[in-house]
């Protein structure tokens, strides 16, 4: 279980993380989504005991990151967003080194390493030098490395970044397997749909603050009060703009590039939406089509990180 309490990190006047509070239950997969620089890696670095917080604290399986960093390190498997590998080490030697670093006996390491290589589909590469592996293979090997001491909590910072579509799918499959193994996983990405499929809960972080938290369905539902509507017109675009601008439930009105459509956010019920269309027609606005655009996950993410405080 991970519990983050008022975690703050400041660099001079810049606040990278602003009073973050979070609770991730044992065995659940939490997706941390945010743009680059939103505070994801800062949070992960603090949880991995690589960065000290300015204030606040966090607990991993009951161990305090500030007071018991050594115990925390034995509980977590950490995979950073950018990492290097040692030249001239073979894949199995790479895992062997980290196994020894965690104090795992040689006989145990001998049994573990083939299993881990199999888990990440790298058995055929065990005698290959790590620096000649492809990026996807290195990512998988690093994931295997983070599992070598059988941690209960996995902290994975953008594990699929920079991978080709096939490698992404492979990585996703491995993570699903880890989820089935009952690991508590904290995973980050700046791409929401990438996480949606495998995460139980998603947190959206923007400018160091958690702006939304819940299941993907919950987050989408919260935004459903605001619908994105597109209206196609036959002439009289200026008249339509004036009309819609005067409507209290309409916001963020935009003229589309085609010169004949308008797009706006509508914050009302379905009945109010019908009334709006009726009113527009009664004002002789020549509407050809009037439809709601289905918001996908990317739209949700874009909408939330625009500054809408939801939580």
């Amino acid at each position, binding site marked *: 279980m991970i519990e983050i309490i008022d975690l703050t990190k400041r660099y001079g006047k810049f606040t990278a993380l602003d009073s973050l509070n979070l609770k991730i239950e044992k065995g659940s997969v939490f997706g941390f989504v945010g743009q680059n620089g939103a505070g994801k890696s800062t949070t992960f670095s603090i949880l991995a*005991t690589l960065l000290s917080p300015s204030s606040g604290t966090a607990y991993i399986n009951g161990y305090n990151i500030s007071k018991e*960093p050594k115990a925390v390190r034995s509980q977590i498997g950490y995979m*950073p967003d950018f990492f290097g590998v040692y030249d001239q080490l073979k894949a199995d030697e790479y895992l062997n080194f980290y196994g020894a670093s965690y104090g795992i006996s040689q006989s145990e390491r001998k049994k573990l390493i083939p299993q881990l290589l199999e888990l990440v589909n790298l058995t055929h590469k065990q005698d290959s030098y790590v620096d000649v592996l492809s990026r996807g293979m290195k990512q998988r090997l690093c994931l295997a490395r983070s599992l070598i001491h059988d941690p209960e909590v996995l902290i994975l910072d953008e594990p699929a970044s920079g991978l080709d579509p096939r490698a992404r799918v492979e990585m996703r499959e491995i993570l699903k397997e880890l989820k089935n193994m009952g690991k508590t996983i904290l995973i980050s990405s700046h791409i929401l749909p990438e996480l949606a499929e495998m995460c139980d809960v998603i947190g959206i972080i923007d400018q160091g603050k958690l702006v939304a938290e819940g299941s993907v369905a919950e987050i989408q539902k919260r935004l459903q009060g605001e619908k994105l509507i597109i209206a196609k017109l036959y002439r009289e675009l200026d008249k339509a703009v004036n009309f819609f601008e005067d409507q209290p439930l309409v916001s963020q009105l935009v003229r589309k590039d085609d010169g004949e459509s308008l797009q706006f956010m509508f914050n009302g019920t379905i009945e109010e939406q019908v009334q709006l269309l009726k009113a527009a027609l009664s004002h002789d606005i020549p509407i050809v089509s009037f439809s709601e655009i289905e918001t996908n996950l990317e739209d949700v993410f874009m909408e939330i990180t625009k500054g809408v405080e939801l939580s």
Partner: protein
Amino acid sequence: MRNLFLNPVLNKEFKLRFRSFKSFLGLSFYLLALSIIIIGFIYIQTQNSPMGLFRPEQSKSMFMLLSFIQMGLILFITPGLTAGIISGEREKQTLNILLTTNQSSTSIILGKLISSVSFLLLMIIASMPIYSIVFLFGGISPGQVGTILGYYIFTILVFGSIGIFFSTLVRRTIIAMVSTYGVTLFLTAGTAFLFAVTMSVNQMGITSNNPIPYFFVMLNPIMILFGFLEPDAFRELSSQTGMGIDFPLWAANLISYTIIFLIMIVISIRKLRPNMKVKSKG
């Protein structure tokens, strides 16, 4: 001690450093160069001798020449080997992963230090049979050779600790390297220069019983090496510079260098990982 030699960092670094053909080649070239110097020295001396003999005092001069060459090599190579060991890992983005393992900071720092200077130690130890040629001609006792070897290892560890200190504190390898070479230059050329200046001040009679030259000699590894090679001449120097301090310079050097070593290592260990304690309440 057992833990130190079961150190994963040490094992890994040994594997990486010694498995490459370049290491073997480097060692071979070094021993070849040393052999050429010795054979050349003996050849020149016997050619210049009317009887074609190589006398014990010439053997001692050869040993001294080799000893200063090796010391120069140690002072030149050690900063280069050690000043990048932590900052280099940071730049290669391998340090973060290493720091999240269960290995203690002490184990990482000592493992890194010993592994980085191990190749230099191997070079020095491998050159010992070549050194032993002096025993054929006399002039040097096995005890002196042993003392010199011990002092080399000590010097490597002390200057290595200065390298690892800067490597831990400074993020960029190049800056760590320049800083380490700067300190090495101060402890060699700098202290020699300051010794000369303070001695000349003493001789001019401006000050009396001034012990400052003693402290500069104490910090200079080349002068201490000279003391091991020429104990009589060094005693004379010691009595001139001591100005009332009746303590062997070599012992003062060992104590001061041990203190420097311990300070460098302790700070490196403490600074390797961040202090996770919250510094201020936000």
